[in-house]
């Protein structure tokens, strides 16, 4: 049972999760799970519980605080916290709540009733950038470059560009 006399004491029955949402697809792209932790810090700084490197996120942007079993969301950063289109300073949280860090920042979803998990993260640190996106098709690349670079116009351009640079130096 929670120790009501000391709201900061660990409470093993306290479980919550925060999800970083993909704004286009509406699904979590990264999640953090917390157990027995009455204070969850969110921001860009490395020591935040939910650390998000994003230029719209302040180093110390927001906190989720649990006092006497009641969660509240508190805005701390200069970019503000937006819930249902309203900029908030502090609001009590009843159930699952979606909020945004700044008017252009990332969207997070807080789930105060998330079941306990062994690890704080339910998902791997999924890169928000797909790995295969960086794989170039080199044979296609060589073919396309050759189509242009082997043409008369390009060869003449190479020659003239060299001349022009020498003249300007």
């Amino acid at each position, binding site marked *: 049972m929670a120790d009501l006399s000391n709201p900061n004491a660990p409470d093993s029955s306290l479980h919550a999760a925060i999800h*970083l949402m*993909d*704004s*286009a697809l509406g699904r979590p*792209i*990264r999640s953090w799970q917390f157990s027995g932790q009455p204070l969850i810090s969110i921001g860009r700084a490395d020591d935040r519980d939910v650390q*998000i*490197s*994003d*230029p*719209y996120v302040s180093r110390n942007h927001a906190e989720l605080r649990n006092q006497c079993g009641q969660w509240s969301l508190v805005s701390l950063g200069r970019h503000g916290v937006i819930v249902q289109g309203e900029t908030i300073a502090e609001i009590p949280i009843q159930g699952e709540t979606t909020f945004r860090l700044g*008017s*252009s*920042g*990332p*969207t997070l979803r807080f789930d105060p009733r998330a079941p306990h998990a062994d690890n704080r993260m339910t998902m791997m640190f999924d*890169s*928000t*950038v797909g790995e*295969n*996106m*960086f794989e*170039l*098709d080199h044979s*296609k*690349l060589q073919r*396309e*470059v050759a189509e*242009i*670079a082997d043409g008369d*116009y*390009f060869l003449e*351009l*190479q020659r*003239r*560009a*060299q001349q*022009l*640079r020498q003249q*300007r*130096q």
Partner: protein
Amino acid sequence: MAIISWSCSAAPNNCASNVNNSPRVTALPKIISTHSFRGGTGKSNTTANLAVLTARAGHRVGVIDTDIQSPGIHVLFQLEESAIQKSLNDYLWGRCRIEEAAYDVTPRCIGNVPQEAEHPRVFLIPSSLRTGEIARILREGYDVALLNDGLQDAVRRLNLDYLFIDTHPGVNEETLLSIAVSDMLILIVRPDKQDFQGTAVAVELARKLAVPKMLLLVNKVAPGTNVPELREKIQAMYQAEVAGVLPLNTEMVRLASSEIFTNRFPDHPFSQELQGVVKRILE
């Protein structure tokens, strides 16, 4: 030269207080091409903002719209179609000299710079918006060598320190020429597989044309992206420097090309990142 004067009172955020009026360190003028593989990367917007920030650092800057097929950068400088008497097209058809198609847009994008002050100044050479002119270019083509003469003449006759060339997306003759005569190529890319593959072609061609400096600018990066990781991977993929990673910018969308973003939001992360790119340009 075509001169258009605007009242600064119409542009409350464009005061000239944040400009460097100290004497310029004379150096060889630089030609800078901005290019992207596909449309919609924010190329024109980025070019206009880089040009204005460069001018604000105390320089004479030209911007030329070589995107003859789909011109657009004039909108950011609030140059209305009715005000464009002469354009790049007129120069290419031999109807005027290049400097006669240059519009002094300094009052609009910098603010109250005295008329006699040589710097900062921004000149815009727009492409024609008349559909007949665009159709003629597409139908008949033009002497690309003349474009080269125009670029060199613009630098010399307008006494420019920097000339920014806003190119047409993709690879065509004028784009290749713009890249070939440039001292610096800025490639704007979105974190998108198609953009990455297409940009690789431009990178290879620029290397073959021996462009002295090439910078990548990653634009429209989604919130929550691991920026250092993205930067590292793109640099490794192209073996080229990523000079800036620009966040997806909803304020930019709201501004709807109505003015220069860095004038309106000078402290925005987007503007700050562009300031870093300008430092690289001025080096």
